[in-house]
């Protein structure tokens, strides 16, 4: 049977309904919603990394630094300078984007391992700088960051944040998808496939590499800013190399170069320790390791390959 429009629409409707019903389904277990919220913020940051690595063919081992800059900029602006939260988030996104431009410059000269090392060094230095500044709370971290609010409404409950993040995530993912199917997005993908050919077609390779870095950094900055107002606590060590590699793992497990991969990877990353639970939580790390190996060997497009297979099986 040929995939039909009707079946696909039905499947999408069911999926949307499920996503919207999650807070009701887990009404008695609000912590699950809290974890899903974190997963969505990670998915956001991972989408930025995916744009960079999956579609742009550039490597970043310092992606957590963009989240840190977004988060700290927004939090400090609100706490120290009493800036409106919305503007603070915008500033966080812009700050991360600016740093994306800085970290993007090595990509004009370096690629592969060398770019990985350069971004790793720049990325790790951000956490160190934050640790030594007073305005960021230094090694004590920043605590009592005000809770997320949307105009007059405070988003205190996990469920309200859940819906807010679902909307943000959907908007950002749609924007990324639209971008990739536009002239600029095609230029970015062309640079990934062959720089020389892209240039011969009139694509300014250097400019598009920088655009990719800036865009990826902005998305991670948004994730960081929302994270700060969700967790209410920031510490530089949360955004070091370990977390950068965590984001990388999420994008690989989810499926590099796919739009839904980052969601799958981030949910897997956050929820796995919970599902295993109890005394076996430490096994989660082992399972992550095996998942990455398994995904590289059997699912080149990560968990998104499973989704594609289910779609084929259900003829959607």
């Amino acid at each position, binding site marked *: 049977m040929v995939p039909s429009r009707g079946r696909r629409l039905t499947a999408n409707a069911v999926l949307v309904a499920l996503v919207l019903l999650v807070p009701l389904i887990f009404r008695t277990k609000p912590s699950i919603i809290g974890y899903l919220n974190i997963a969505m913020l990670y998915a956001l940051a991972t989408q930025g990394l995916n744009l960079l690595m999956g579609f742009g063919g550039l490597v970043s081992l310092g992606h957590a630094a963009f989240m840190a800059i977004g988060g700290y900029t927004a939090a400090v602006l609100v706490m120290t300078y009493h800036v409106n939260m919305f503007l603070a988030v915008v500033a966080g996104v812009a700050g991360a984007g600016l740093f994306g431009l800085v970290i993007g410059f090595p990509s004009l000269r370096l690629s592969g391992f060398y770019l990985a090392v350069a971004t790793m060094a720049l990325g790790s230095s951000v956490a160190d700088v934050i640790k030594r500044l007073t305005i960021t709370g230094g090694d004590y971290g920043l605590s009592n960051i005000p809770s997320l609010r949307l105009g007059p409404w405070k988003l205190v409950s996990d469920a309200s944040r859940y819906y807010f993040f679902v909307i943000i995530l959907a908007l950002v993912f749609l924007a990324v998808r639209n971008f990739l199917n*536009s002239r*600029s997005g*095609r230029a970015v993908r062309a640079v*990934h496939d062959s720089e020389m050919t892209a240039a*011969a*077609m*009139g*694509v300014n*390779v250097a400019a598009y590499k920088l655009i990719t870095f800036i865009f990826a950094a902005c998305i991670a900055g948004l994730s960081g800013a929302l994270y700060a107002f969700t967790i209410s606590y920031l510490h530089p060590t949360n955004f070091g190399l370990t977390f950068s590699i965590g984001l990388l793992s999420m994008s690989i497990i989810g499926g590099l170069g796919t739009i839904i991969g980052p969601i799958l990877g981030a949910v897997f990353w956050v929820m796995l320790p919970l599902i295993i639970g109890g005394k076996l939580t430490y096994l989660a790390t082992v399972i992550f390791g095996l998942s990455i190996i398994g995904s590289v060997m059997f699912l080149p497009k990560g968990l998104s390959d499973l989704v594609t297979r289910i779609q084929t099986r259900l003829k959607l």
Partner: protein
Amino acid sequence: MLAIENLTVRFGGVIAVKALNLTVEEGEIHALIGPNGAGKTTVFNAIFQVVPYTGGILFAGRELRGLPRHRLAEIGVTRTFQNLSIFPSMTVRENILVGAHSKTRSRFVAELFGVSGEPKQRLTDTLNFFGLSPLSPAYAAVLPYGTLKTVELARAFISSPKLILLDEPAAGIPTSEKGALKAVIRKMRDAGTTILLVEHDMELVMDISDSVTVMDFGEKIAEGTPAQISADRRVIEAYLGEEIHAAS
């Protein structure tokens, strides 16, 4: 259209192209031929500012030296590649649209909202010109080599360039499809595009070229019409006695 003056390209101690003079007239199909290693592709790379060179390369009276590589498409020079360089992750439509990059502009915000629009007329015309319309949504990675060669031509042609450099368009093309390839190259010329062609397929070169330049060991050894070239003793020697027949 294109004037190459005293072009020399050195790779370390090796002189790949030596004091080459070459003029491509507007509206012609000009073939650049010679044995492997004669320096033909290096000439292309010099034009595209990929390799350092001495001498002058003038396109429509404008010196190309120092021009950023991506600006060539904008002023009207595009190319195809020797071993096919298609974007494998893209569809035929997307591949060809990348070729239109220099003729379109980006509005970032519109792109995020998916309302930036595409050069639809240009795309439709190009797809029809090359007979690729039915394949437009197909992913390049699944298509046969010969078809991808045509996609590459379409991608170089969609920006309505004044000059196209074709690097071995017939390589890997089955004999049965050569007729169609000749026809499409002629059609591109007749649409007003000047063509500079590097090719090993002598039958094709002699059949479609208006003029031919022959290189050997980096130097020009002959130039003229296909008939003149196939009668030239030095050319025959360079090809180790290989016979060259001009199509009658």
